[in-house]
């Protein structure tokens, strides 16, 4: 009986132990829960948010580029994409057939899409069609609810309305490369690659925004929680006048060359044309390799921006510089006369004037108007190479103009861009005096030179942004009387019958001061097997015409260069005339508008 009681007692005690043990187990669990849900709650909440919230960048819209009057040169066009999330489509093949009927796809396209879908992740959107316009997608968009897993999305792409007319100036954009990604670009962003698109990349690009999306465990978007809108890129208004650019382009026609027109008071560029151009839209829609290599192999080199990226002998346009140098250095011949028999003998060589029969006795004024070579051979000979090189440097030759576009070349001035010599061979100095031989300059440098003559010696950094302040490289110290002599001579080039550009400049509403140039091309070896291109005769000279207008009250300076165009006055003159006429008529029309 006692033993039984003992067992009973022990059992009752053990029951208490069980109660206590149960309590202990639940206390431990509860304490752990308190620790997790109260003390470490914030940390876990952060993790749960990180799990479900995906921050997706929202790309900014790129700034628009317009000409000075606001006409679009680089725009963003809305286009539509058709996307498919394969796992949400029940019958892929059948759906594709239905879409093909609406979007006019070929059977090959369907096959290609089937293959692409087969290769893609079933839970990620596959691009079926891109760059569609609204009329094309609207039938599908209206019936989208019949097509689960198919989506139509709007996107923008870059569009260059003027294509090849503005190709070198505006440039183009392309998808970010791995190098760009290191710079902080996002994978599907576009980056300016050439021209203004490249030079103003930072301003045009804008700032990406972001979107907080709630995603499920498979990364699919369930909801948009928060959106920080992107900041659109800055719109840029260029100083370019597309009417003038168009006039210049039409006047050049199929010929190869460059036209630069600069505001003489601000250094802003109104025309910056290089021909042939290339259609920059091709870069956006996806450039085929064949097209790209055709551009590369074209002997006219359409990808080269001839206004800044290539330097040519400035030829007789450089005689203005030789004149300025001689006047400044008080060379006796500058105020005297030389006799031109049609050639100049130098040791056993004969340096020819372009006019075989010669110009007779010529002053500097006559020599500029008629472009006598012999006068300038002698003038340069008396001046010497260092004096000529120094003057060239003062007026901005042999150095980059500092324009924002790239790549820019600086041209060549012997002794400045090449090592100076103690003694220059006289022949080199003479040839350089008429802008031939080793002397080269870009059309932009020549146009800026003309502008500086017109505005009294202010050398501008050429500017394409209409709303930027003008930047002056330097004010060239030049005697006013000396400058007047040069200007008068330039005027008479176009205004007197003896002038080399007289016949081409007649009948213009404005009087023009100018100078022709005809750069001799080193005779080509016979049997040159480079592809023959119409309007591009490799044996013809390069033609130049530079100057400013109106003569009395200068507004614009210009340089026209026609590669293998022939004689300066006849080949390049009419192009300048066309631009000047277009501008003058435009201003007249505006005035007429304002008058009544």
């Amino acid at each position, binding site marked *: 009986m006692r033993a039984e009681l003992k*067992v009973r007692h022990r*059992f009752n005690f053990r029951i208490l132990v069980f109660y206590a043990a149960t309590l202990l187990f639940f206390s431990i669990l509860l304490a752990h829960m308190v620790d997790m849900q109260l003390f*470490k*709650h914030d940390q876990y909440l952060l993790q749960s948010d990180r799990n479900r919230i995906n921050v997706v960048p929202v790309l900014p819209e790129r700034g628009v580029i317009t000409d000075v009057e606001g006409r679009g040169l680089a725009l963003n066009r809305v286009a539509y994409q058709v996307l498919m999330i394969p796992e949400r489509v029940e019958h892929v093949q059948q759906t594709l057939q239905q879409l093909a009927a609406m979007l006019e796809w070929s059977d090959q396209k369907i096959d290609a899409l089937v293959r692409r879908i087969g290769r893609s992740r079933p839970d990620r959107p596959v691009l079926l069609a891109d760059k569609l316009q609204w009329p094309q997608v609207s039938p599908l968009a209206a019936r989208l609810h019949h097509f689960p897993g198919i989506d139509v999305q709007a996107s923008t792409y870059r569009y260059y309305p003027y294509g090849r007319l503005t190709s070198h100036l505006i440039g183009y954009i392309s998808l970010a490369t791995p190098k760009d990604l290191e710079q902080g670009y996002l994978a599907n962003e576009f980056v300016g690659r050439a021209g203004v698109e490249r030079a103003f990349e930072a301003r045009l690009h804008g700032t990406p925004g972001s979107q907080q999306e709630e995603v*499920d465990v498979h990364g699919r978007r369930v909801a948009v929680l928060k959106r920080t809108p992107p900041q659109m890129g800055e719109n840029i208004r260029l100083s370019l006048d597309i009417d003038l650019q168009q006039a210049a382009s039409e006047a050049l026609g199929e010929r190869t060359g460059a036209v630069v027109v600069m505001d003489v008071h601000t250094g802003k560029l109104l025309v910056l044309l290089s021909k042939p151009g290339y259609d920059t839209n091709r870069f956006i829609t996806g450039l085929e390799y064949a097209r790209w290599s055709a551009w590369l192999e074209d002997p006219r080199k359409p990808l080269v921006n001839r206004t800044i990226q290539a330097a040519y002998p400035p030829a007789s346009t450089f005689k203005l510089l030789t004149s300025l140098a001689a006047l400044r250095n008080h060379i006796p011949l500058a105020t005297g006369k030389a006799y031109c028999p049609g050639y100049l003998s130098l040791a056993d060589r004969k340096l020819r004037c372009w006019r075989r029969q010669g110009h007779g006795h010529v002053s500097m004024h006559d020599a500029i108007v008629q472009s006598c070579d012999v006068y300038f051979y002698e003038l340069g000979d008396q001046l010497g190479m260092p004096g000529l090189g120094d003057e060239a440097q003062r007026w901005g030759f042999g150095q980059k103009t500092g324009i924002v576009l790239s790549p820019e070349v600086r041209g060549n001035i012997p002794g400045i861009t090449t090592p100076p010599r103690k003694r220059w061979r006289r022949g080199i100095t003479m040839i350089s005096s008429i802008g031939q031989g080793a002397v080269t300059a870009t059309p932009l440098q020549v146009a800026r030179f003309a502008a500086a003559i017109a505005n009294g010696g202010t050398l501008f950094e050429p500017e394409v942004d209409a709303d930027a302040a003008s930047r002056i490289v330097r004010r060239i110290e030049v005697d006013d009387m000396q400058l007047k002599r040069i200007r008068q001579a330039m005027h008479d080039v176009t205004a007197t019958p003896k002038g080399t550009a007289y016949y081409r400049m007649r009948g213009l509403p404005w009087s023009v001061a100018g100078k022709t140039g005809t750069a001799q091309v080193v005779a080509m070896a016979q049997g040159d097997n480079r592809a023959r291109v119409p309007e591009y005769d490799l044996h013809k000279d390069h033609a130049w015409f530079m100057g400013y207008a109106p003569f009395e009250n200068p507004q614009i300076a210009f340089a026209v260069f026609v590669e293998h165009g022939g004689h300066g006055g006849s080949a390049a003159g009419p192009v300048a005339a066309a631009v000047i006429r277009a501008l003058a008529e435009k201003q007249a029309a505006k005035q007429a508008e304002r008058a009544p």
Partner: protein
Amino acid sequence: MMNVLRGMDKILLLALAGLAALGMATLYAAVYQGEISLWYKQGVIWGGGLLLMLGICFVPLRFFGLISWPMYLLALLLLLAIPLLGEVHMGARRWLNLGLFYMQPSELMKWALTFLLAHWFASREANNWFNLGVATALTVLPAALIVIQPDLGTTLVLMFSATAMLIAAGLRWRVFAAAVALAVAMVPVLWHYMHDYQKQRVLTFLDPQSDPLGAGYHVIQSTIAIGSGGLFGKGYLQGTQARLHFLPEQHTDFIFSVLAEEGGLLAVTLLFALYSVLIFRMIAIASTASSRFGSMLCIGIASIFILYITVNVGMVSGLLPVVGVPLPFISYGGSALITMLAALGLVLRVGIESSGRIPWQRPGSPLA
């Protein structure tokens, strides 16, 4: 009939009703986005299980004592048959194909051993070496067969409930302490014989971040769910971890994290309170049982419940390694719920028989 119904423990039934409501509500949150049919299925199973529980309340306890030996031997036989006829699922050979359905003999053994130990100690004390030795042999034999399947979870349940019953039966603390020391010493040996996936589970448990996308993924996601629930939870059906499918197995073994995420600490406390009431009542019924067999049975069953709850909550909250154990009355799963309701029926029957309402059990009754 009325006597049986009146004799049922009301508090225990109330706790069960609470658990049923909480369980069904949580299960809905876990499956409402997907396989909502599971929720209806679980409702039907609840109905069937409750009927079974009620039925068991009418079966005299003696019956279970009588069948304990045959049941144990049958379970042992089936366990022995497994290495020969068993089918492999997920790397473990646990299942027997009985033609109509698959069964896990280890599940049967769990209850058979509980019955048998209760029966064995109904008239014996665990304070002599013979009684203790037989009980230990009866436990270790099936435990060894189950651990090689391998099924660590069920082995643990077996050992744990056997230990609880031995303590109830008067096991000396000295012996208990020695056995625990021996078990700890056995850990390295056990490690050696563990399968790779089991070792992986233990290692992942020790450092879940070591394999965040693999084995550790489940635990990381469920702890994030629990912790991010906070005091009040994210709101019913508002749990982001659950709604966005970051939680694995969210309607079965990991359902606790759905409850903790959406209901917060408040819901967790409510769940623990309901469980505590349930277990306390079981122990209370054990303490007032009119037979030692009934007491032993209640202790065994209560210990199984405690272990299930602790192991499940511990594993989803990163406190214990991942062992596939359901959360009683909350997890989706037909056989587990039916078994647990049946076990609860047994406990209720013990209470009924000690309530003095049944004529043949009254003191002085010829049937006593």
